């Protein structure tokens, strides 16, 4: 039902719903190749991750050049949020939420950096650069080892420390 009745005032929308089911079919068929540049979502199991790889050592100079101006040296925070681990998140009076103490899933890092960062030139990093920055930030947050290589295979297997820290508020609506 699109809208429900309030206090007996009919909104007469059900007619519109029936009408709306009848589509004029004006969508143009597209192929994966047509939409490749936009098809950038990474799913938590790693689906969508591209070829390429990177390590923290490769990520450090890219970070210094393209990220530190806002996020501070080594992720300590600046005009934009810290990317370092803080103490445990205990409540709204506890530590700031960051990658290491809060983010539930590792693939979010690749997905978000690739689509949104650096803030002023989003979607300009190569996939290797995004893997390298992801590795660099995961090392900073002590989630992976210093020399671990991040790629489509390894990144989805990284278990984030706060993976089980979440409660779905309205499971019935999913």
């Amino acid at each position, binding site marked *: *039902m*699109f*809208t*429900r*009745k*309030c*206090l007996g*005032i009919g*909104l007469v929308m059900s007619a*519109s*719903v029936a009408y*709306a*089911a*009848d*589509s*004029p*079919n*004006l*969508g*143009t*068929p*597209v*192929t*994966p190749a*047509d*939409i490749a540049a*936009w098809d*950038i*979502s990474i*799913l*938590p*199991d790693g689906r969508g991750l591209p070829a390429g790889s990177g390590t923290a050592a490769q990520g450090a100079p890219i970070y210094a050049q393209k990220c530190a101006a806002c996020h501070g040296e080594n992720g300590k925070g600046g*005009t*934009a949020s810290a990317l370092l681990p803080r103490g*445990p*998140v*205990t*409540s*709204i*009076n*506890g530590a700031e*939420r960051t990658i290491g103490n*809060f*983010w539930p*899933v590792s*693939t979010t890092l690749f*997905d*978000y950096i690739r*689509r*949104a960062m650096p*803030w002023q030139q989003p*979607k300009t990093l190569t996939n290797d650069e995004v893997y390298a920055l992801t590795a660099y930030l995961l090392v900073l947050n002590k989630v992976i080892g210093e020399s671990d290589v991040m790629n489509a295979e390894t990144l989805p297997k990284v278990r984030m420390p706060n993976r089980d*820290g*979440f*409660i*779905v*508020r*309205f499971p019935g*609506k*999913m």
Partner: protein
Amino acid sequence: MTKGLEPIAIAANGLLDRRTFIKGGAAFAATLSGYTETQGATAQPLTDDSWSLIPGATTPPYEQRSRFEAKVTRTLTNPKGEARVQNARTPLHLSQGTVTPNGLHFVVAQSGAPDIDPAKHRLVIHGMVKRPLMFTLDALERYPKVSRMAFIECGGNSAPMFSPQPIQANLQTLHGMVSCSEWTGVLLSTLLAEAGVDPEAKWLIAEGADAPTLTRSVPLKKGLDDAMIALYQNGERLMPANGYPMRLFLPGWEGNMSIKWLRRIQVTDTPGMTFPESKTYTQLLPNGKAYQFYFVEEVKSFITQPSPGLTMNGPGTYEISGIAYSGEGCIKRVMVSADGGKTWAQAALQAPVQDKAFTRFRLPWRWDGSPAILQSRAYDDAGNVQPTRAEFVTERGELKAPLPPAAFPNQHFNGITSWAIDAKGEVKHVYA
């Protein structure tokens, strides 16, 4: 006033029967005084003013409001457009009725409003569908449309209420990240039917065409229910900062999920765990866990007039007025108290009362000039009751030290707001 129309007090501190205005008619209404930002003028002999003596202005193609209304504006958190989120809050205390003018609609723009050429904009629906499809704006214009009134509220609205002491700020600062409009567009279910959704699909990932290509995961259930691709806001095209030329619109749900500048919907079997749903729009609980996928903006109300900054103009009869809404349905009842919640009177609801839309409530009040504490409490037709602030923060947590009013220590506050009126008629924010 005619005998027999003497209003009946139905709760302490001068709250009158909600039918008083209707029954009393013009005679009673004439005794009403307005709230003022400054004291009103006394009567003078009337003369013809200059505007009555010369022809008026030429009617422009697109009209701007009177220059005397210039102070009724949104408040901005990032007026220079620095590299961080931009928030604009709606002046609810200076508005009436239930519709938010487009230029005053609240905004949260992570990285500003993109300057989208509608002729070049595309919407793609792909993923777990039989036929991946692309739509132009012109194509969507030819689809059957629906219109509905609906509020949209930022998940972080009312965050100052987590402060341990009541923050002395006006309604716009405390609750200004909610607005209500008539939205017109194409039901998403129509487009999903055309694409042919895989029976195994459970989620949609919606993406904007803005610089951070903001993404949120939406349960397919909602997409097939009342989700809309909104093209119009109060009869005109969407405002740039509200998603021009098209946005997802999810009635009753956290504003951030109604992805603006919508360019892509990927049908999937899992949520994307995107950045906003992994951090920004999660809500910490006192046990250190956090709510994720909160979705619903729960039943809520607040008094808009009087409210801080709108001073009582001496003892007399006033209209207490406010807004109630629920992301779970229709407002069924609003109760108002003038004694900090000890006694309550039922307010009149302005028709039409609509599902997931602002409902205006009103109640006559005879203020005798003594201190009072005003509160409103809303009930929806799904059985939800607006909690007291104390109940809410006991469950969700309260800050140990106050933060600046524009900070977002936590979200989804829907507790009761209290305004204290002192003997001078000044209105303050209090916890009661």
